[in-house]
């Protein structure tokens, strides 16, 4: 469950204030936020994920107003309840695939369940690359690892920032389905922020910025 109220953000350097529309999602509801480049998509995602603090307005996840949390509580809350799939699916370079997942659980203070990790890696077709270094993975493998990292800790909300921008039509579909399936399994809301209109048909709930 996530909802926003009067979110605004202001970049000092750019002298530009963003205003974002309010929305509210019930359990298991997904949302597609469409918008052109430069309209503040990534800013919105960072506000929602608690990586940025809004100038005004609130982000409420599972009845917690994350805008009012202290820095360290926000770190903890983010670690436990939020999953983010980044545009280029970065994972920590110095760690292997499985170590990244273990680190994800370690930092979110959740039990490191190696069976669950193996299960997820099998599901995403990464089990054979379990002990590979991140920089030895292909783009597609990295993206799947990114998805694994965003769901391994059973978050309440999963955010995906332009997950399909560099993919062909076929893979675009596969990735969106994968995200939706994982979100459903974790019982989490999925919010995809993109400029890619190809994914429009996959979501019933859409906001345009």
């Amino acid at each position: 469950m996530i909802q926003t109220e009067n979110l605004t953000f202001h970049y000092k350097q750019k002298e530009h204030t963003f205003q974002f529309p309010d929305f509210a999602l019930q359990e298991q509801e997904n949302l597609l936020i469409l918008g052109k480049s430069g309209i503040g998509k990534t800013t919105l995602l960072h506000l929602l994920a608690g990586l940025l603090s809004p100038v005004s307005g609130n982000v409420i996840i599972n009845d917690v107003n994350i805008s009012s949390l202290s820095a360290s509580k926000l770190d903890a809350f983010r670690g436990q309840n939020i999953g983010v799939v980044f545009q280029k699916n970065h994972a920590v370079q110095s760690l292997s695939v499985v170590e990244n997942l273990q680190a994800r659980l370690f930092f979110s203070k959740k039990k490191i369940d190696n069976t669950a990790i193996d299960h997820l890696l099998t599901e995403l077709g990464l089990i054979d690359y379990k002990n590979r270094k991140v920089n030895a993975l292909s783009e597609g493998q990295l993206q799947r690892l990114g998805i694994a990292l965003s769901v391994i800790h059973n978050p309440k909300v999963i955010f995906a920032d332009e997950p399909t921008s560099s993919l062909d039509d076929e893979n675009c579909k596969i990735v969106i389905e994968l995200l939706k399936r994982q979100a459903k399994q974790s019982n989490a809301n999925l919010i995809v922020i993109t400029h890619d209109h190809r994914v429009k048909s996959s979501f019933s709930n859409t906001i345009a910025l």
Partner: protein
Amino acid sequence: MTLWKISVKNIKTKPLYTFLSVFILGLSIALLLGIQQLKTSFKYQMENNLGDIDMVVGAKGSPLQLVLSSVLHLDNPTGNIPYAEAKKLSRNPLVKRAVPISYGDNYKGYRIVGATDEFPTIYNAELAEGRTVEKSLEVVLGHTVAEKTQLNIGDTFKSSHGLIDNDIDVHDDEFVVVGIYKPTLKVIDRLIFTNLESIWNVHDHDHDEEGHSEEAHAHDDHEDDEHAHDHEEDKHSHDHEDDEHEHDHAEGEHDHDHEEKGHSHEEHSEDEHAHEHDEEKEITSLLVTFRNPTGLLMMPRRINEETNMQAALPKFELDKLYEYTGVGFKTISLIAYIILVISSIIIFISLYKMVKERSFDLALMRVYGAKNSQLIRIIAYEGFIIVFLAFIVGVVLSKAGLYFMVNSVDSGNSQKILQSIAFHEFFQIGILVFGMIIVAVLLAINPITKMNISTILSNEK
């Protein structure tokens, strides 16, 4: 998964930097430890060799030379003193123990020291086998001497004149080994102990053959060194005329000496009468231990002012020596400190690079739920791991280096000289190194505290 594990993984991704950091920091630690250990060993070795000798009395000359020759057995003696004078000093109530020693010959470079039975007790030397010296021409070998010369009890050998091994000036008398001392790690390990009579007898014989007077020959003893040097420089051109000349010179000195003796006769005629025989004998020096510190204040001055002998205080002379050698130690220490600073800079760069280049990874960890303090700890642990490895490398390097050094300069004096470094000194070096690394870490983590995760994540590469 722990922060330590992440730090280790980080270190593993940059092996070159890590190797460089560990190696150069290890090198500076090795230098610091090595120089400290050498200093400690050097000082300990010197002071250990003193035994409980408070004062040395010998012929006039350089007091440092007297200490080096008669206490540490490293240098040539300053000359001889009359045994009677020495005995007189021994009876002073301030004196706890006075050991007369006489030397001038060697066997394979090891000095044959004639002294009274108290000599071994200065060094707490105990017999490993055999018995102590009972009559003339019997010797007990120091541990090192026995080891290096392979002499055993019952073996005999002939001594060479002078203090350096030579085959030309060999005495006819045969010494017989009657005992071997246990290792003491003191100077007695590399000495051959006999009684005073042995030394006198060997030289009496030679002397008779050569047809010189007894005293003249005894005097010749302190010219030994020159003899020895001559031999070394040109073993085959031993010039008899030179010899003659030196003898003349010696006799000249003798005359002078005799006057002095005459002078003391007047003052202590009673003593001299009682030891008429001893009066003609000479010894190289007298090793004195006082009953209490008063002796240190009174006797040296009196001896230096009122007699033709000189008194030197080993502790004082050696302290002066440290001041000279200290310059070398200081230079090496300075180099070690410079290397330490350089290694700290390298570690700083290595950590700072990690913070800057891996800022996305660090931001990602923040998204995973990591606190700033956890990121800082990851970086700090990296620093600590490097220091820890460097300490191991440093200790191993310093041990190996010193071992190699001590073995390569085996001049027969090295003995087992390495002393382990005092804990507080080790601790001081540790604190210093850690201090430097903490500064490097603090500088390197500075960007983390100002890190804006949103900006970093927005600028995906």
